[in-house]
């Protein structure tokens, strides 16, 4: 079969254009050799064009994908680049954790402040006299709103509960499901030895209290628990967590883009 030189030239020009799609390094290394191989194939009378053209088209698709993947691997999968990215990711993660943990602790510790003041003042009053008699004389601080007791599941007001030395409730400004809440087991033994404890108390699912328990010494010893629902504080802690998470994602994005740009500009180039 006679082959038209014009068609062959046209096909070769098209093939040369298609070679522009290969990565620069591969193209510079093999463009001339590939064009020559294609020219040889066009001149091979044993290879008909209806076999050659689909073969070359399939080859273009598969080898373009393969060479671009190889180029990406060579550009971005270099150990030094990955190591740098991992170190930066570790630093960003540590920073984001600190951005969450520090304000969270400040908020949580700050949530105890009114209770510490209330418990300290009440303990000072109770230590001066008989525990039960002093309570009857109205030593308790006024509950916000003026009511006798607060529903700690809903109210954000601070409250106090006074216990005798055996841990029995003498008076309570707090109610949960209509009853004074039961303090965590072992808390009085701990406070008997350490004088004070500050802790997060969950008397019921979804009710969390920032609690401070102080020892009442003197001839009529006992305990004072001051508490406050942590709902608002925990909402702020959640906001801090969301901001820290957004900051972390942003830093990861910057590291990703920075690594990609740095990897591209420092990629292996044709000799």
């Amino acid at each position, binding site marked *: 079969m006679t082959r038209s030189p014009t068609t062959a030239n046209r096909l070769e020009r098209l093939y040369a254009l298609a070679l522009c799609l290969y990565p620069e390094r*591969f193209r510079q290394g093999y463009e001339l050799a590939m064009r020559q191989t294609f020219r040889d*194939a066009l001149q*091979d009378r044993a290879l008909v064009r209806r076999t050659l053209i689909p073969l070359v088209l399939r*080859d273009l698709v598969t*080898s373009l994908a393969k060479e671009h993947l190889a180029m990406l691997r060579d550009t971005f999968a270099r150990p030094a680049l990955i190591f740098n990215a991992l170190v930066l990711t570790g630093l960003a993660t540590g920073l984001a954790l600190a951005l969450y943990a520090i304000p969270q602790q400040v908020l949580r510790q700050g949530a105890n402040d009114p209770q510490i003041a209330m418990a300290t003042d009440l303990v000072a009053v109770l230590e001066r006299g008989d525990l039960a008699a002093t309570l009857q004389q109205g030593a308790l601080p006024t509950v916000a709103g003026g009511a006798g007791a607060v529903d700690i599941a809903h109210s954000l007001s601070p409250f106090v509960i006074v216990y005798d030395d055996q841990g029995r409730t003498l008076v309570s400004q707090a109610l949960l499901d209509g009853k004074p809440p039961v303090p965590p087991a072992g808390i009085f033994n701990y406070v008997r030895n350490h004088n004070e404890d500050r802790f997060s108390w969950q008397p019921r699912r979804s009710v969390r209290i920032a609690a401070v328990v102080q020892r009442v010494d003197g001839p009529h010893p006992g305990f004072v628990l001051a508490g406050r629902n942590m709902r608002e504080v925990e909402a702020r802690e959640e906001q801090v967590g969301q901001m820290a998470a957004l900051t972390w994602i942003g830093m990861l994005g910057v590291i990703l883009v920075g690594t990609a740009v740095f990897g591209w500009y420092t990629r292996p180039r044709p000799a």
Partner: protein
Amino acid sequence: MATGTAPAAPLSPAVFAILLSLAEGDKHGYHIMKDARAPQGGGIQMGPGTLYGSLERMMRDGLVEESGLSDDERRRYYRLTKLGQSVLAAELERLDAAVSSAHALGLLPHGGRS
């Protein structure tokens, strides 16, 4: 730059066909493609992109090298290295063992091999 790390068996069809073709001697790209297309060369339909991509990786692995000979500056000739020869020999042994096993199991038509 050759790293000298031999690829793990089994070799890909393209790499095997290229090694087999170059076992005869130095050849240029289209000659290798023709050999690979022939049934005795592996029957691999390979275009220039696959051929030169494979050759580049094989040169990096130290299996082949450019011979430097050329009848035309645009034609590049390649030859097997010592490592390439031993990798080809190992692959042929592996295939030979598989064919012998297939014979023993009666999976191949009679007369294909003694």
